[in-house]
């Protein structure tokens, strides 16, 4: 992979054609996300381990990984997991989920130009598999002119499988991984994100919204507790791009 020329990880371009499915695209999608398998597996181990320590059964942990399906939100909610459940704690956990995962909403928006022509019964189930990594890789593929939905689905399904498998192993061997920080695993997501800015680089002018997004995020994180900074920064960047005139 990575023979890909450095085109924006960003834009679903006008060049992208009508959506279709192919086995080849599915395979390519699997291969495209494979660089993260090891670190993703390690993250799943961390979650499984933490979940077991909080008293989750194997089934509990698998249900959370399978349905909630988000490394960051799962680890964050575990850290604030209450001993007693009340309506208030339930609402708090839902609010945490909302703020941590709001970025998924933005990612969902960016699939409209690509999946918009699919029948809804196909588009919506596929959108369930949106993850940071799968989305980033799919956007890069789309920017390179691809329109094979199999590419996104292949990546999405294999990531889901790796996530479930690593969760199970983490629960079953919950005494094994005691200090994930020592292996740098806590920085996996920021590192993967940051490296994807490189192929997305399209000159300084196109990067202005990113700079604005970063600065706003830093300021908001400093002022407001929680994960609002991601959405505040991202929306600011997009708004800036809307205001900046095209050449």
């Amino acid at each position, binding site marked *: 992979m990575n023979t890909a020329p450095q085109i924006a990880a960003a834009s679903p371009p006008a060049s992208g054609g009508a959506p279709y499915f192919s086995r080849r695209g599915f395979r390519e999608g699997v291969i495209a996300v494979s*660089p993260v398998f090891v670190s993703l597996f390690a993250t799943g181990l961390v979650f499984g381990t933490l979940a077991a320590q909080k008293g989750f059964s194997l089934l509990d942990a698998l249900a959370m990984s399978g349905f909630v399906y988000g490394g960051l939100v799962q680890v964050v909610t575990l850290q604030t997991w209450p001993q007693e459940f009340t309506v208030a704690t339930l609402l708090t*956990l839902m609010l945490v989920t909302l703020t941590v995962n709001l970025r998924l909403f933005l990612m969902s928006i960016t699939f409209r130009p690509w999946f918009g022509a699919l029948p809804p019964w196909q588009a919506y189930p596929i959108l369930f598999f949106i993850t940071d990594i799968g989305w980033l890789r799919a956007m890069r593929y789309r920017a390179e002119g691809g329109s094979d939905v199999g590419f996104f689905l292949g990546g999405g399904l294999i990531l889901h499988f790796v996530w479930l498998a690593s969760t199970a192993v983490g629960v079953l061997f919950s005494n094994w991984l005691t200090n994930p920080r020592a*292996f740098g695993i806590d920085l*996996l997501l920021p590192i993967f994100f940051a490296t994807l800015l490189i192929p997305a680089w399209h000159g300084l002018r196109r990067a202005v919204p990113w700079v604005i997004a970063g600065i706003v995020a830093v300021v908001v994180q400093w002022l407001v507790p929680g994960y609002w900074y991601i959405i505040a920064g991202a929306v600011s960047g997009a708004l800036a791009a809307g205001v900046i005139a095209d050449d």
Partner: protein
Amino acid sequence: MTDLVHGNVMLVIAAMTAVTVSLRLGGFFLMSYVTVTPRIRRMLDALPGSVIAAAVLPVALQGAPVAIAAVVLAMLAMYVSRSDIAAIVVGVGTAALLRAAGLG
């Protein structure tokens, strides 16, 4: 306050699932009611990079200097090699090494 069943993990998971699924499907759904003008297209184009920058920069600054070094070296590795896996190995490896050396 009503007490829910003690330790009813599944109920909480169901509630969290409802939230994440509506987010995953909601953006796509909403955009069916929006006409994509050139301006909105520019905003959509800038969105992925903006999400990345907003998610990474605060984490990197907070985890200084280990996180900054890891992120910068990973980006450098990506620039040189154009390989995601090399970049991730360099980034995570940098963090592990620096921490082993007693930093951060």
